[in-house]
């Protein structure tokens, strides 16, 4: 059993949750405050903060994480510079990926965030491949593979989990089940969900442990993923962790050709299904204020300290946006620079 984090560590966790939320809110605001600077399709992690931080709080030197297009939270927790992240999202020369990748493909290899695929499910085998390398190196390192509930319906998920289990690869599959694949609810597309079963049941097809955890509780996620990581580091193989979260923003900004100003629509629960109550219940369960309440109640954090934290983080993110807006566009030649090593 992995130990519960110290009060200091819990404050660190809360801080990271605040930073993710503040970063994503800055990105969202940029659509209106800086029209046109963000292009294509941007996906936010607000609502998944507890799950992301609880999972990454076990991260060690030499560990690795890979994720999807919904990738802003992870590198932020792992230490990437929000300035460089925002500059990447704005397509600027100072971007984490020199402006070539954009919002969907944040990558920071130095910090163990090896990259993302924008193709659903495609990044899952990449994580297993990294795990194979770590298994060969025998340093007790692990890989965290983050993906969504919908991705579990891609062949890549199935093929990879079978091999990972067979080879006892040091990888933890963290499925962020936010109940939606864009505008499709999980019960509409998943046979287990339709039968009222947790998605973690899928682990049985791979003779692998499968656990479901409240992804709004960073300590519960810390414990569940912690156990899975211990297991992986010990050479006992992978685990499937279903972390139940709620996406607080729409799937992504509206999809439109150039000329149409991009923005964030209302969440699909309201805009498509007219289930305002579902969405408001989710807001009431918002992991950020919830954890703040727990920490303040436990005395680990005073309300004043919490407010200071938030204020400092708000400033950090404002600076990130200011930096990104000022950062120049990359040189045109750089468009042809990185196709081949």
């Amino acid at each position: 059993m992995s130990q519960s984090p110290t009060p200091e560590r819990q404050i660190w966790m809360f801080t990271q949750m605040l930073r993710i939320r503040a970063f994503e809110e800055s990105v969202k605001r940029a659509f209106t405050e800086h029209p046109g600077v963000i292009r294509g399709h941007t996906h936010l992690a607000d609502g998944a903060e507890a799950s992301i931080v609880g999972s990454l709080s076990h991260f060690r030197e030499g560990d690795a994480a890979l994720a999807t297009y919904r990738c802003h939270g992870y590198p932020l927790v792992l230490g990437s510079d929000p300035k460089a992240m925002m500059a990447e999202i704005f397509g600027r020369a100072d971007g984490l990926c020199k402006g070539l990748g954009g919002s969907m493909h944040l990558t920071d290899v130095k910090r163990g965030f090896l990259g993302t695929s924008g193709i659903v499910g495609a990044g899952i085998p990449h994580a297993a491949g990294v795990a194979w390398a770590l298994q060969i190196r025998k340093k007790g390192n692990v890989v965290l593979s983050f993906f969504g509930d919908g991705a579990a319906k891609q062949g890549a998920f199935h093929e990879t989990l079978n091999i990972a289990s067979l080879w006892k690869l040091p990888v933890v599959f963290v499925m962020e089940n936010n109940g939606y694949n864009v505008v499709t609810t999980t019960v509409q597309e998943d046979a287990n969900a339709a039968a009222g079963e947790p998605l973690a049941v899928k682990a049985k097809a791979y003779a692998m442990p499968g656990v479901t955890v409240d992804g709004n509780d960073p300590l519960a996620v810390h414990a569940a993923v912690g156990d899975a990581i211990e297991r992986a580091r010990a050479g006992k193989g992978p685990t499937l962790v279903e972390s139940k979260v709620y996406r607080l923003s729409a799937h992504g900004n509206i999809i439109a050709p150039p000329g149409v100003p991009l923005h964030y629509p209302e969440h699909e629960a309201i805009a498509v299904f007219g289930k305002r109550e579902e969405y408001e219940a989710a807001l009431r369960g918002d992991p950020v204020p919830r954890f703040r309440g727990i920490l303040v109640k436990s005395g680990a954090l005073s309300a004043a300290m919490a407010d200071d934290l938030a204020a400092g983080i708000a400033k950090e993110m404002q600076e990130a946006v200011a930096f990104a807006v000022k950062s120049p566009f990359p040189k045109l030649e750089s468009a042809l620079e990185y196709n081949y090593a």
Partner: protein
Amino acid sequence: MANMPYIAAVDAGIHQEMRRDPSVLYFGQNLATTENHAFVAAYGADRVRVTPISETAEIGIAIGAAMSGLRPVVELYMAEFMLVAMDQVVNEAPRFRYMSGGQVKVPIVLKAGYGFTAGWAGQHTGSLTALFMGVPGLKVVVPSTAADAKGLMATAIRDDNPVVYLHHYMLTLEHGEVPDGEHLVPFGKAEIRRAGGDVTIVATGWMVPRSLAAAELLAKEGIHAEVIDPRTVSPLDLETILKSIDKTGRVVLVDQAPRHASVTAMIAADIAEHRFKSLKAPIIQVTAADTTIPYSEPLEAHVIPDEARIAAAVRQVLK
């Protein structure tokens, strides 16, 4: 005639056929998740269904349903998403009729958008038409106007073979006049978008309006370009292209794909074999740079053919 956006015309084509033929199905991801969805409301849950994110199964299921006499239209959103199911597209759907000695037909339509160079970066911006063009048993259509979007969709649905229907994301909201009522556009008939006697420009999809803009530019210099839109690349109406070249003796081919992944290379090779004698100048291709598409706006614009590059190529073949 009604004036509507390209994307509405695509839907109009599907509606036209679903209304007249109960064997037409429409399914895929993220559609019909509520009863208010236009298609499920009109045709019911037997014929219109949402699927999980499972392209291999989606396309494979379409093949099976088609072998059983139905006419599925699969909504795939982006051409790249067919790559996870490429075996079903190029090594299953187009093979069954042949391998069975003609016992079965596989009338499916694989509907996908492409070429979304609007900040979608490396994995969602491809122009993959050439991957499908040369596959025996497949047909491939690339509408560039609202009217063709409707008419080619209707023809695709009535066709008894697997059809890859590629609509261009950059044209999504381009409005155009679309014939009311039943409208069908034949496969294998290129359209001359602009007549001219000095040079032939061949382009598809979003490169058609860019080529027309270049032709406009050139007209001011007294250069009269003929702009041809093949509309379907399989079957390909080579005849119309060759006839134009017999007249102009000069040709520029425009493609949004990288050079060695382009449809224009296929056309250029056909021209070089069949019209060598008519040619007065090299066959020049204007294609994307050989690169993954960058996210950053100026870089993205830098690697994609634009009217200036097209016009420059025309001036070059006229030298």
